[in-house]
């Protein structure tokens, strides 16, 4: 059973077609990279998968289950987690509180208006563990606004991992990071166990190519090349798109 | 309900629809294109009526007074836009509060200057009486309002769709940064659009004068009608404003005749209908 399959996905805005008949399938445990010039429709594809956008046509299957009609927020209960190109965490809150919010999202507790959140020991402990996994537990009480971009990116990924996803969608995780920060994030990403399937959008070829096992190239909303890393890199159309663009 | 009453109501509906179009076209432009929720719009309408009442009292003829009042309101609108709204790009809450606050101030000043008694504006003499169309007699003035509304609808459409100014307006809205790069003076454009919307509202206030009169509270009565029109028709769509205006006009008049106490509720129902089925309005663009 494939982890994630997308079939004939179409999406247009007014007259502009951003996703045109995209089909792809990702195997469990795979490391898939999605590349393509700006405007190719990569983030749109993620948004369609997570349900933040509704497709005009096509289907999305998650571990064999058709989730095309499933409401967006529910998909994240079915094993999807994602990060965003621009880090949109809770600026005014501490790192600990940020992680607590992400853990709360999948818990029944989130509807409870009576108990005190600050007294939920189990939740807080899990949040600290999550931060420890990315070596940021020493900054647990630090407001997010006072951390570096690289630290925030690691927190964001940690929050996504704390949701115990089966599929992790990473949207340009290395964007805006300094070299040493990239190294940290790369180490974090490559250390993710194989029971999590990873699909990544990236522009930074140096880092991303190492990571990728299979690559899908998008151009003007269509899949133009797909295959193993070696195949895609050698493919004439890839060179055409990147050198011509 | 007998036939003649139905006809009268229908004519009144078309008239109200025409007036609403003039009022809401400006609002829709400003809101849809500039993303500014101009809660002062009802005040523009009322101010137009008050200005014209005074001008006419000083001997100016009806049509000149209508045009001039529109200009005075447009000037006021321009000052508001340049001095205040321009400093709040994209800050929607602030724009809501400031235009709301201004509407309260304007209402109060009008009350002081023109007192609380309703002021009648007389129908221009050339348009008094009735005209026969296909053998049925209609009040001439109400026919005239419909004609004026149609003329303005066509003119506005031509402006937006066929002129360079209209293209610049549309470009400036879609991507202000890019438009600036290309050389379009977006901020000047926005002032023009705001003034145009204000002029239309003020003009509408005068045209509506012979039918509605001008009185304190007129602004508060017209504003929600404009809001409902824009919610129904979709913001930024001229066609939506046109269709929405006539729907509201008909609903309001027939509703008031059939269920006199429920006029506002009758407006409520289609708004509910549209919001549930098509939240972007009948002709609005779907949010991306």
């Amino acid at each position, binding site marked *: 059973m494939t982890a994630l399959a997308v079939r004939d996905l179409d999406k247009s805005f007014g007259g502009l077609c951003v996703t045109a008949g995209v089909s792809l399938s990702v195997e469990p445990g795979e490391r898939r990279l999605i590349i393509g010039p700006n405007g190719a429709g990569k983030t749109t594809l993620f948004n369609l998968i*997570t349900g*933040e956008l509704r497709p005009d046509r096509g289907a999305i299957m998650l571990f064999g289950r058709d989730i095309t009609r499933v409401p967006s*927020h529910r998909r*994240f209960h079915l094993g999807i987690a994602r990060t*965003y190109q*621009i880090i*949109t965490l*809770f*600026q*005014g809150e501490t790192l600990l509180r940020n992680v*607590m*919010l992400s853990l709360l*999202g999948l818990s029944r*507790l989130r509807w*409870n*208006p*009576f*108990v*005190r*959140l600050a007294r*939920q020991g189990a939740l807080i402990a899990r949040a600290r563990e999550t931060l420890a996994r990315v070596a940021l537990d020493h900054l647990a009480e*630090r407001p997010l606004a006072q*951390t*570096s*971009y690289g630290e925030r990116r690691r927190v964001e990924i940690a*929050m996504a991992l704390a*949701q115990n996803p089966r599929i992790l969608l990473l949207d340009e995780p290395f964007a805006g990071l*300094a070299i040493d920060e990239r190294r940290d994030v790369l180490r974090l990403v490559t250390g993710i166990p194989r029971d999590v399937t990873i699909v990544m959008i990236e522009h930074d070829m140096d880092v991303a190519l190492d990571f990728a096992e299979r690559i899908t190239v998008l151009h003007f909303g269509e899949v133009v090349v797909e295959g193993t890393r070696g195949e895609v890199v050698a493919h004439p159309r890839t060179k055409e798109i990147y050198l011509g663009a | 309900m007998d036939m003649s009453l139905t006809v009268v109501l229908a004519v009144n509906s078309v008239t109200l629809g025409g007036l609403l179009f003039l009022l809401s076209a400006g609002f829709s432009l400003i809101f849809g294109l500039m993303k500014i*929720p101009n*809660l002062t719009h009802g005040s523009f309408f009322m101010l137009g009526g008050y200005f014209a009442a005074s001008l006419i009292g000083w001997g100016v003829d009806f049509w000149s007074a209508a045009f001039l009042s529109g200009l005075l309101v447009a000037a006021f609108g321009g000052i508001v836009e340049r001095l*205040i709204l321009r400093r709040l790009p*994209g*800050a*929607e*809450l*602030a724009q*809501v*509060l400031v235009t*709301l*606050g*201004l*509407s*309260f*101030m*304007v209402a*109060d000043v009008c009350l002081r200057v023109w007192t609380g008694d309703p002021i009648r504006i007389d129908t221009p003499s050339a348009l008094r009486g009735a005209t026969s169309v296909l053998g049925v007699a209609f009040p001439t003035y109400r026919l005239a309002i419909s004609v004026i509304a149609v003329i303005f609808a066509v003119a506005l459409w031509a402006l937006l769709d066929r002129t360079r100014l209209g293209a610049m307006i549309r470009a400036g809205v879609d991507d202000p940064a890019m438009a600036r790069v290309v050389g379009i003076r977006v901020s000047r454009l926005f002032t023009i659009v705001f003034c145009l919307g204000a002029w239309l509202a003020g003009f509408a206030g005068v045209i509506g004068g012979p039918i509605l009169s001008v009185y304190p509270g007129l602004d*508060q009565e017209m*504003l*929600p009608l404009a*809001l*409902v029109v824009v*919610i129904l028709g979709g913001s930024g769509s001229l066609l939506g404003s046109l269709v929405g205006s006539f729907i509201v006009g008909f609903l309001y008049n027939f509703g008031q005749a059939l269920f006199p*106490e*429920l*006029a*506002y509720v009758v*407006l409520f129902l289609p708004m*509910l209908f549209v*919001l549930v089925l098509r*939240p972007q309005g009948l002709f609005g663009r779907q949010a991306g």
Partner: protein
Amino acid sequence: MKRLVVAAALAILATVPVWVGGTYYVNIASQILIAAIFALGINVLVGYAGLVTLGHAGLFGIAAYAGARLMNNGHGHVAVAAGALAVTLLGAAVFAALALRGTGLGFVMITVALGQIVWGVAYRWISLTNGDNGISVSGRPSPLGLSLASAASFYWATFVIFLLAVASMAIFVASPFGASVLGTRDQPRRMNALGYHVWMIRFLAFLFSGFWSGVAGLLYLYYNQFVGPQVVALTASAEALLMVISGGAATLLGPIAGAALVVIMKNVASAYIERWNFVLGAIFVAIVVFMPEGLVPGTARRWRGAMAALRQRAAPPVAAR
């Protein structure tokens, strides 16, 4: 230290009828508390959920009018309260379902339209609301057999309800659900991606907010022994919003302070200036012109979001303390 201040404040508030001079001022104090409950209710939406509303006077009015009708139909006070609040909750549900079809600005505009429609009903549906003449009622409830006819006793009853309101807000904010609401204010997209049902969270927050607006409306009816369409006018919603903003949205104290400020100014202003509407409008304009950022957490977020997007790298971390 903070507890001491809170205890002192409570003691002062609890004894108002004792040290304040005269029935007139006790009544003003009651008005302030009623306004504060209303403002706290609105703050749930504006401050905590980040949804600006200009139609809540409609819910306040629905409670007052429903209460008046029930009372005049001879029902006992328990039935009046239960009935009025039930109708208000229903109204809040309808308001929420419609307003949430819009986002941000659309939301505000729909609340304006809804509030105005309630006003239209209050003004025109004469057989239901008596139109401009309003509805008079006589009598106040007698909880536990105690009469609330005097200004002081009514004040104390209102004070108890006010305490309940404040307590419920405090519990709400500190709860997981409260955290969810705050989260949807700051990052609705992220909240969705974390598995939260953003629409439902907002809907429930709206109901909670509507409930307290209804309580305030009912208290107002008992206080005033009369309700008229002015109560549901746009100016009433605007005043309530002003209370929340001027005191500081998204805090517990802010709406209370704002309510006190606005009620006192209104009563003082009407003694010296007849033009309260002008003053109200001018205050709005002044607040916006002189402090456009950070009026309400939502607007502050817009700035922060824009700044964050422009910046590639954040400032280096502060040295550990």
